[in-house]
């Protein structure tokens, strides 16, 4: 059902089936909450994230999006879900 | 994925008690049964307990009676679980109670301490038997009085009531609930085996005749509410589970929002308040029985079943022309010190209790500077006779060392 709906465009005509919609997301990191546990970096399926080279006031190097990988997030939100510190989330870009 | 079953929920009589099955009028009840009826009269609709002699009859009575009034009886796996289950019940707004004897009372200390710290109103009944340990399961003792005062670790102030008859067990159980609700604190009903098992006439008045007290409740909107911000009487108004306040209760030292703050600064605000909310509200709980004390020079201090022997001893002494009087702390803890000091003629105090010297320590602390304080007691197993008490009253004053 959900798949069928996703294939419909807003004006009702069918989207080409060989051109699936690719989700894109923008990653936000709340640096002050990050504890550099690496979960998001390690388990991101698109390897979008890395540990940055600066320190937060709490002494951790927060996660960040790799330069040049900004458009590669597929909005799977695994980083958001696995983050134990509510320090990272994804806003899905509207198609 | 299985569907959640729909269960037809009966109306929640625990939180909105109806009192459609009162057993009013003149009854012939044991102290244990009178205590159970007092709890029902007070609006108690949750009892969690574990069988133990000589308190079992309270559980048995409530197992029968609570379902009749829509209440909840549950027999837990031990007294630890019983004690904390009644706290879980109370945070929803239910009036809750457990009943036990010495060995179970020992197990309850952990979560009794939590109740003082989290400020959860509830009532704990200890029908005392001889100890230590398994001791004398079926015979009397008054040896848990210091445990009632100091049992859980840390500093706190206990309110302990001690009835001398089934009628008083009924009345004091209601009083215990009223005090617990009013001050958001656990209240201990320190009965003894003889009062628990003796059958006497108990008059249960119609519903409403004895006033009931409800706990102070949160009235401000959630964003203005602080779980542990005390009112002028030092008692914080209580928001119940499910009211939308996102309350935070903890046994850790905490700030006014219930956040853990494990520092000296937080401790020195919180712990003295827990003490002071009891000590500065004495009129809420203090009860005293005085008998022929106006002109008494020798005073018998006794509570529970021993107070009845003491009263007889006073009468026997008066027949012999002795100026005896009875000072009966019904609220044993905190001890009514000012009332004791106000009896100016007293030069000798006999403290009678079925132990080797517990409440006498407090009496000696209060009256030691101006009166001779003598203890008369036994290690448990039998009631102290009036003659034994009278003898102690008549024995010559000890020579000063």
């Amino acid at each position, binding site marked *: 059902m959900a798949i069928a709906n996703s294939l419909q465009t807003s004006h009702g005509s069918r989207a080409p089936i060989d051109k699936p919609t690719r989700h894109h997301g923008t990653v936000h990191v709340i640096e002050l909450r990050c504890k550099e546990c690496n979960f998001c970096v390690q388990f991101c399926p698109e390897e979008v994230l890395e540990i940055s080279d600066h320190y937060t006031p709490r002494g951790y190097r927060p996660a960040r999006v790799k330069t040049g990988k900004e458009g590669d997030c597929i909005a799977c939100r695994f980083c958001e879900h696995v983050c134990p510190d509510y320090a990272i989330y994804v806003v899905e870009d509207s198609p | 994925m299985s569907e959640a079953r729909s269960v037809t929920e*009966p109306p929640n009589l625990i939180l909105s008690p109806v009192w459609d099955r009162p057993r009013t009028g003149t009854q012939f009840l044991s102290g244990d049964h009178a205590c159970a009826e007092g709890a029902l009269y007070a609006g108690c609709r949750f009892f969690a307990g574990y069988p133990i002699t000589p308190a079992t009859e309270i559980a048995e009575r409530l197992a029968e009676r609570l379902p009749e009034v829509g209440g909840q009886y549950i027999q837990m796996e031990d007294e630890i679980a019983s004690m904390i289950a009644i706290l879980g019940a109370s945070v929803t707004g239910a009036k809750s109670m457990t009943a036990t004897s010495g060995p179970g009372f020992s197990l309850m200390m952990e979560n009794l301490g939590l109740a003082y710290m989290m400020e959860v109103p509830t009532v704990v009944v200890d029908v005392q038997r001889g100890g230590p340990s398994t001791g004398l399961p079926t015979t009397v003792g008054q040896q848990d009085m210091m445990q009632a005062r100091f049992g859980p670790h840390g500093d706190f102030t206990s309110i302990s009531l001690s009835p001398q008859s089934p009628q008083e067990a009924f009345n004091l159980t209601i009083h215990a609930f009223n005090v617990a609700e009013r001050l958001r604190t656990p209240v201990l009903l320190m009965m003894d085996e003889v009062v628990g098992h003796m059958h006497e006439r108990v008059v249960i008045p119609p519903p409403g005749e004895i006033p009931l007290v409800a706990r102070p409740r949160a009235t401000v909107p959630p964003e203005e509410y602080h779980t542990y911000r005390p009112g002028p009487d030092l008692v914080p108004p209580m928001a119940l589970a499910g009211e939308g306040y996102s309350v935070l209760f903890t046994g850790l030292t905490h700030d006014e929002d219930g956040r853990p703050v494990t520092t000296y600064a937080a401790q020195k605000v919180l712990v003295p308040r827990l003490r002071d909310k009891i000590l500065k509200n004495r009129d809420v709980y203090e009860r005293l029985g005085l008998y022929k004390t106006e002109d008494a020079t020798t005073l018998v201090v006794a509570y529970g079943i021993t107070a009845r022997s003491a009263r007889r001893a006073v009468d026997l002494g008066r027949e012999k022309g002795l100026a005896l009087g009875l000072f009966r702390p019904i609220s044993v803890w905190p001890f009514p010190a000012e009332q004791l000091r106000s009896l100016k003629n007293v030069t000798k105090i006999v403290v009678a209790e079925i132990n080797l010297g517990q409440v006498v320590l407090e009496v000696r602390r209060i009256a030691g500077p101006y009166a001779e304080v003598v203890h008369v007691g036994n290690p448990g197993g039998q009631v102290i006779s009036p003659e034994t008490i009278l003898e102690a009253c008549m024995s010559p004053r000890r020579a000063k060392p």
Partner: protein
Amino acid sequence: MTANAEVALPPELHPYDHLLRSADLPTIWCPGCGIGTAVGALIYGFEQAGVPKEKRVIVGGIGCSSRIVFYAKTDAYHTTHGRTIPFATGLKLCNPSLNVVAFAGDGDLFAIGGNHFIHAARRNMDILVVCINNFNYGMTGGQGGPTTPAGALSTTTPYGNPEFPFNLPNLAWATGATYVARWTTLDVRRLRNTFADVVNRHGFRFVEILTPCPVSFGKTNKIGSGVEEMEYYQALEVLKSRVESTEITKTDIELGKPIVVGTFVDRERETFRERYVRVVAKARGSKS
């Protein structure tokens, strides 16, 4: 400003901030600890299942896991060590409309609180019990406990644990739980769906979550950091759902051996509450 404009989140606001006591973040949990992940999954479960905010109640005990109460914004009770389940029992019985979760660690629930667990399961009490199993006592610095694998090192088993651990799903099944699942924090998707599925159900439900404890268990047993412990799970996990009763004994956890995860038990059984409602009807009906 249009009425239907997409609500843009300011960069400092996580989608769960309104469901957290967010002023108290970051949490006290160590870097690489997975408890926060489990807490997030539970919050998701509440949201997804449509549990009204004021009906959510979390009861914690003592230990790292029980610190959930200070971060998840629900009615929260931080009780004594091992006593989450009987507290939750009293609470749920007196207000059955509440959705009560007992959330604690393996030492809390199965050492000092083990007796309460088996009896609540036996009664089929209407609570969801969540066990953060990190195989040791984290808060006190990594002592061995009832779930420490045989032979594993801890500060109190310096020569290797001579004891055998509990198999928690087996214990829960044997004592009467109606729903039993085990996930690791790496299975966060399945964990979230499990919570969404079970928070609204009746009966005694048990979810075990294997969680990294890098500073104690992971370090002592040379598993390594939190990420490395997650990779350890990734390498050893075997998914098995709805196992037969004879199979549940094969979910034991041994160091370096495969770890079976999944939904093991999902069955119907009358709850304590359902049975007690009939007691009330009988008592009220028989004496009018």
